[in-house]
């Protein structure tokens, strides 16, 4: 509240912590699901399951990046949010154009429709948050 001349706002305070909370939820959900799918029935839909695992990894790294908050953390979070946005858009399109490619649902299928489109909104919020907290060190 009383911080007057912060050169670069921390990404892990206030609304940022809420964002981190949602990222952690998705990290846990995607990791546990992808882990079990790969362990039990990997052969059925390897592409879909590997993609879920990749998404899970990106959610974890993004959450860590935002939580670390430093210069490196910001850069990591920026990379993750960008990859995530491109991923959800690409997989969303592909899952509509070519259903054969993803016989089983992934987090990003149908632009994340199975998860209330949160996977689509999340990277946008992440990028907006990074933008809002950005301020060059004086």
């Amino acid at each position, binding site marked *: 509240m009383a911080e007057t001349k912060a050169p670069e706002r921390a990404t892990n305070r206030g609304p940022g912590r*809420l964002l981190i*909370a949602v990222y952690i*939820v998705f990290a846990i959900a995607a990791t*546990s699901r992808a882990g079990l*799918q790969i362990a039990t029935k990997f052969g059925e839909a390897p592409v879909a399951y590997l993609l879920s695992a990749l998404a899970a990894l990106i959610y974890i790294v993004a959450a860590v990046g935002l939580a670390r908050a430093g210069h490196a953390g910001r850069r990591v979070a920026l990379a993750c949010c960008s990859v995530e946005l491109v991923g959800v858009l690409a997989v969303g399109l592909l899952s509509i154009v070519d259903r054969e490619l993803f016989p089983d649902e992934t987090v990003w299928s149908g632009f994340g429709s199975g998860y209330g489109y949160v996977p689509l909104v999340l990277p946008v919020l992440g990028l907006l948050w990074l933008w809002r907290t950005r301020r060059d060190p004086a």
Partner: protein
Amino acid sequence: MTSAAAAGSPVDGWLATLAIVLSLAVAVWALVAAVRQRPPDRIQFAGLAVVELALLALTVVALVALGGGDRPGEPGAFFGYLVTLVCLPPLAWVLARMEPTRWGSAIVCAICLVTPVVVVRLQQTWEVVGG
């Protein structure tokens, strides 16, 4: 209750309904706190603890049913949701403790809104087996 439609499902009954109702109640309480710029209060933390207890009870019921030979329709997704579910209230607790501002209340609210969704998804992944 709604258990008549799926009598065989261990995750669809008064316990699941209780968890959903409690979670939504905590979400509303936390939302009011967030709007009023209040940090998470005792009621929110107590609420999270009660929701977690309900979810753990639900997990025990599900595991007992599994031990008895019942199987969910989509085991992978079912266990994924189950693991996620029991992690939610502790996660909200820890993050809300770290954030003693209105955003702490917002975190509790968000997680308590996600919890009922995961409970419903859990029920859906159990029931697929019937067809």
